């Protein structure tokens, strides 16, 4: 059909882009993770020392565990907020449906940094929340635990990633034919029963997709813990950042990154398989 040169012209640019900006960096990263640092220089000598260190030093595992805990909390809260919101917009909002949908989307146009920073001004010791609490006499001293804590990180990330849960859940709710819900009622099921036996099972692929987004994105987040996390809210990506920065231990940072990458790929392919099993074509 198309000439050779035309096909080459179409295929080569994206292929080059992917190779240079995606595949090559990953190869570098894996290479670095098997190299080592000796007297402040990176030595290209193959070793498993970095991975051994990750297994032997419990600090890294603890930070990873904390990151996973934070990511799991974010996922849970984003689901608890995002699902009812999606349900409401999809089934109950009627005339204000488009407006509400836009309102959920709009924050995504605002820079991530601004949204994370906003929480700093809300939660800080002279922030909005504490000012209200102290001036109204509810608190004598500003609450210090609000900012620079895992709590602040979870709160900020939940705010940022709830739309990522909302969108796939909303999409799968919108795909449920109205007739199917009417059929359930027609067969004698109450609203609650219809929800649990029809709506929720059919929305599950969206729930899983949303949960995967929230979990994976939170797990690798480094800005929120940096801005509002404080010393107790440090997450795995902050460790990687410092290893590549001040600590100047790129090989160890690369090893952590490689582990994270494999972990996330395993997670995504697992949830994707689950989604495909739960998705029904021709519904």
């Amino acid at each position, binding site marked *: 059909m198309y000439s050779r040169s035309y096909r080459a012209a179409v295929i080569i640019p994206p292929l080059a882009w992917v190779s240079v900006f995606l595949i090559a960096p990953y190869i570098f990263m894996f290479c670095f993770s098997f190299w080592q640092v000796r007297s402040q220089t990176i030595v290209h000598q193959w070793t498993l020392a970095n991975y051994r260190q990750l297994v032997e030093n419990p600090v890294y595992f603890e930070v990873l565990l904390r990151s996973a805990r934070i990511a799991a909390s974010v996922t849970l809260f984003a689901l608890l907020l995002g699902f009812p919101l999606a349900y409401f917009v999809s089934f109950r909002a009627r005339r204000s449906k488009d407006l509400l949908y836009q309102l959920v989307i709009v924050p995504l146009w605002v820079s991530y940094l601004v949204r994370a920073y906003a929480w700093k001004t809300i939660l800080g010791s002279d922030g909005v929340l504490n000012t209200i609490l102290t001036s109204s006499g509810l608190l004598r001293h500003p609450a210090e635990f609000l900012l620079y804590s895992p709590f602040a990180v979870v709160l900020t990330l939940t705010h940022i990633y709830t739309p990522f849960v909302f969108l796939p859940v909303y999409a799968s709710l919108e795909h449920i*034919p109205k*007739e*199917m819900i*009417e*059929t*359930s*009622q*027609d*067969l*004698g*099921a*109450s609203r609650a*029963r219809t929800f649990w*036996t*029809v709506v929720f*099972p*059919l929305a599950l692929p969206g729930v899983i997709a949303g949960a995967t987004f929230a979990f994976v994105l939170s797990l690798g987040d480094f800005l929120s813990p940096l801005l509002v996390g404080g010393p107790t809210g440090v997450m795995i990506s902050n460790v990687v950042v410092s290893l590549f920065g001040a600590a100047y231990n790129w090989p160890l940072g690369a090893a952590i990154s490689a582990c994270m990458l494999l972990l996330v790929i395993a997670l995504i392919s697992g949830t994707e398989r689950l989604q495909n099993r*739960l998705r*029904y*074509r*021709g*519904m």
Partner: protein
Amino acid sequence: MTPAGPLLSLRSVTKRFGAATVLDDITVDIKESEFLTILGESGSGKTTLLRIIGGFEQATSGELWMLGKRLDTQPPNRRNINTVFQHYALFPHLSVFENVAYGLRAKRIAGAELSGRVDAALTQMKLNEFSRRRPTQLSGGQQQRVAVARALVNRPSLLLLDEPLSALDANLRRHMQAELKALQREVGITFVFVTHDQEEAMTLSDRIVLLRHGRIEQIDAPREIYNRPKTPYVASFIGYTNLLTALIKDGRARIGSLEWPHKSDQQEALFSLRPEHIKIVKSDDAGATGGLRCRGSVRSRVFAGASELLEVDCEDGLQLKIRVPGQIALANDVIVEVPLERLVPLVT
């Protein structure tokens, strides 16, 4: 045994969406065990009427009564009515068995009774071997049978069917029509069937409600509707017909050279005359059957298998569609005979 009153009474049911009146003053009594078809073109309000009976829409005014109890104040899940939707709406995440069991589980029926009733329904619809399959693994006809089984297993007093055969191809469709009719006879449950297909309505129904622009044009048995249409719309919607305008003067009606006694206050009257009721006769000697006769010439012939449809221009300018048995020898010039009793006066 007491004489059975109507199963369901619709009294002056009216539905408006904003300024549009979708249903206008619908009053029908639906009898126990009858197969009633709501027939109409798209936009006639037939599906809306079905949805009001099912409880998915509220009538703007009017009442529904079922066996002496007010029905329209009950939500769909409290009505002893089940629906087979146009696209079946089978639950894709449940097996055929669980689809059929859905209504029973909602009523907290479990154990041996549940499996017994579901199996019986599956057997009735010849679905036993598919009970573990998912709906998406079934053919269109099988899916349709699951939808019917899922509704009937609840033993409703009324089954609503919203164009359930429209998604099937012609052959399967005829097959399912026969199956549905036989099923209805067997279970004795009242079926209210919505369709836009007049042939389907004629084949299946005990009675037909013909809707047009949200109003009832006629309610009658198929034979009555066909032979005694009340309005020009009914006459032309159901089958082919000749709509003839007669002039009335001195107690006689006249169409072209045809003339017969007719009493009316109006100066004009409209008649329906079915093409198959007009005869082509051999000789000009009048009077044997007492029909009205005129001479004409055949303008066109359309072969339709068992019959042939002619268009005949009569000498007096009258044009008639005439259906004759297929493959008869015909001269170009013919004599046409119209039996008087086949001229059905219409309300205009």
